[in-house]
């Protein structure tokens, strides 16, 4: 396997992304988006698409840049650094992976940024694909979908939806699921936006006899888990990378504050207890960064084995982000609690990221299973 350090190309990609995002999507943009009630800036997304980010996982012959999962992780990490909001993970990572090998026009639509996908998988408060109860009843040559999906990221702004539905078996069973790729405006599908703490687009999708044809099926009928697994792994790795970038952003803000803030006539960064806590946080971030790099590497090089690597990354990123934002707010004292200051945005996004596509316990349990206990 290749090294876990960044290659020269990857370093260039990272630096370019950082330069672009610092200029075009600083944390202030998230605040502006929130205050103006939009989940992301379409203009920014167009520029990202033009730079090849939307097509990072789409092959070049389908119009993408085909840079792979490590590169996707680097981009997600940089977006986390400034909390840049975009449909990147839903469309460019999850949908692009799910539709790999599917119709080229979909993939090129993802790559050029015109198709915005959302993955509708969960139905309760916790990530649980196998728990899918949403029914896809056979009807003539097609299906009718009925049920409710919750916590659909980018579900309000998406123009297409990947939805996991049950065509056989009972909730809890991995078999009998089917993945559909449908237009978000299809009759019977209503979308209800949810105001979440991270000020991003999350929606509840209600399906009432939504018609789907055999052409809408991704992968095999009753084989939806196989169709969605690679996409989930890719998405989980990207969310982990975003969270790790978020850690770096919140941590840099915190150490910056420790170096300048005075209390009792002393720079607070000289207080040894804060120094040790900062050093501990940095250690956690470093260890997590390795897991993120490894997840990208495994997804690119031995994708069949990626579940363990991805779950280590998501578990670590979730836990590390919680530590870093909690310490970040505490070390900032009162101003960290004010809406005027950015630290709160990091805390809120970390909480949503902790739940998206599986929380700490979900992934830690997957690691345990993979490791034989």
């Amino acid at each position: 396997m290749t090294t876990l350090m960044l290659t020269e190309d990857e370093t260039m990609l990272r630096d370019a992304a950082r330069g672009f995002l610092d200029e075009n999507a600083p944390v202030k943009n998230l605040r502006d988006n929130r205050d103006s009630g939009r989940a992301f800036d379409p203009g920014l997304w167009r520029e990202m698409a033009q730079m090849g980010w939307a097509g990072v996982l789409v092959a070049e012959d389908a119009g993408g840049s085909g840079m792979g999962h490590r590169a996707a992780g680097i981009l997600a990490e940089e977006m986390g650094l400034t909390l840049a909001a975009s449909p990147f993970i839903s469309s460019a990572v999850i949908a692009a992976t799910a539709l790999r090998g599917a119709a080229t026009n979909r993939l090129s639509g993802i790559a050029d940024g015109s198709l915005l996908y959302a993955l509708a998988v969960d139905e309760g408060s916790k990530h649980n694909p196998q728990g899918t109860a949403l029914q896809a009843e056979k009807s003539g040559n097609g299906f009718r979908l009925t049920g409710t999906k919750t916590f659909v990221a980018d579900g309000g702004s998406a123009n297409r939806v990947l939805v996991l539905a049950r065509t056989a078996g009972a909730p809890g069973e991995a078999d009998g699921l089917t993945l559909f790729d449908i237009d978000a405006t299809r009759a019977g599908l209503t979308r209800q936006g949810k105001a979440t703490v991270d000020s991003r687009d999350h929606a509840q999708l209600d399906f009432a006899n939504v018609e789907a044809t055999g052409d809408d099926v991704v992968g095999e009928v009753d084989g939806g888990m196989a169709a969605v697994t690679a996409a989930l792994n890719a998405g989980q790795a990207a969310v982990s990378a975003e969270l790790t970038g978020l850690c770096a952003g919140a941590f840099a803000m915190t150490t910056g504050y420790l170096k300048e803030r005075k209390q009792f006539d002393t720079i607070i960064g000289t207080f040894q207890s804060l120094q040790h806590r900062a050093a501990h946080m940095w250690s956690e971030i470093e260890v997590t960064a390795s897991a993120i790099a490894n997840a990208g590497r495994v997804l690119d090089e031995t994708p069949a084995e990626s579940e363990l690597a991805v779950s280590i990354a998501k578990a670590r990123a979730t836990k590390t982000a919680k530590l870093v934002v909690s310490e970040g707010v505490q070390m900032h004292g009162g101003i960290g609690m004010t809406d005027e200051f950015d630290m709160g945005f990091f805390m809120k996004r970390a909480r949503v990221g902790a739940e998206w596509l599986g929380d700490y316990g979900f992934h830690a349990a997957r690691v345990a299973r993979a490791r034989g206990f």
Partner: protein
Amino acid sequence: MAAFSDKPEVFRTEISAFINTNCPAVLREMPADQREICWGGKRWTFTSDAQRDWLTACAAAGLTAPRWPEAYGGAALSREQEKVFREEMARAKAPSPLESFGLWMLGPALLAFGTEAQKTHFLPQITRGEIRWCQGYSEPGAGSDLAGVQTRAEDKGDHWLVNGSKIWTSYANHADWIFALVRTDREAPKHKGISFMLIDMESEGVSTKPIKLISGNSPFCETFFDNVKVPKSYGDDMSSIVGEQNRGWDVAKHLLTHERTMIGGGGSGAASGVLGGRSLGNFLSSLEDGVMADPVIRSDVMELEVDSLAMGMTLERYKDMAKTGGVGHASAMLKYYGTELNKRRYELLMSITGSEGVEWDGPHGTLAPEWLRTKANSIEGGTSEVMLDIISKRVLELPYK
């Protein structure tokens, strides 16, 4: 003013009868999480006639400040009687008639440091809910360094001329008066030139600006003093300063200890907020299946419950200690442990409720803003770091530099 019997059994009967007679049924039948606290004050709008009637009845009987002397609007209850009163209130599901910074903070300060005239004038206004007070300690940029008071009061003969600003003044935009630390001697050492001053918020030059928090709410304000004239005296033997001039730090320290114990109490249980009086187990049983099967969540919840129950016992023990001999600097432990525990509680509630918990208006009501609000618990009233400093240096007597 109702007078209650000294005999324990008679007292219980009397107080129980008082509650049953005077607390309107509508208040007692209301679920705990839908009750609105009555804060009082000149601009208070009662949420119902029942709320007004209950306050009026309690104030008349001295029961908004049960342990204060009758002369100052209290009911002069003994510790044991107060305990019985609380028990009977809980049994009758009667809400507290009045809460305020006047009852919690200024009252105890006046009782300890005020002149007879100050007490007679200000305390009954508090117990009747007529005047709502706020606290002006912190200043912008000073953070934990409360003694770094820059707001100055210049001696202008018959009045003080106050200039400066305060931050983290709770609900200052709703308050009628403020008790504030101001610097009355700029030459004296840091802790020696501060006075504890009572200022009418309607004075010319006082203004407030709410601070929006990450929770979306604005429980705090910035409060500005721009050439505010504060009379040196509000009447005979009634200085606008509590305690001695330039010795306001003593008053503030006294109150800080008091405040810490109070804030620490938030760590023990499910008194308010999303749990709304429910036990954690009760809350958990309302969740969808499967969540509690996760060993990570289950073990975290178990640990939280063990620690919360033990913290409740600790508050009980410390209250008893405070009654006999006092707890001194050890109160910093209650503040530290209680607030950190409350943060853990809310982190866990967020984790348990998953994608529902992160909604501002989700099925768990105000959980998300409450969660964010808890992050201030370990900052306000002295940060956890300051508490640990106090414990290590004052309680454990570990050496200074």
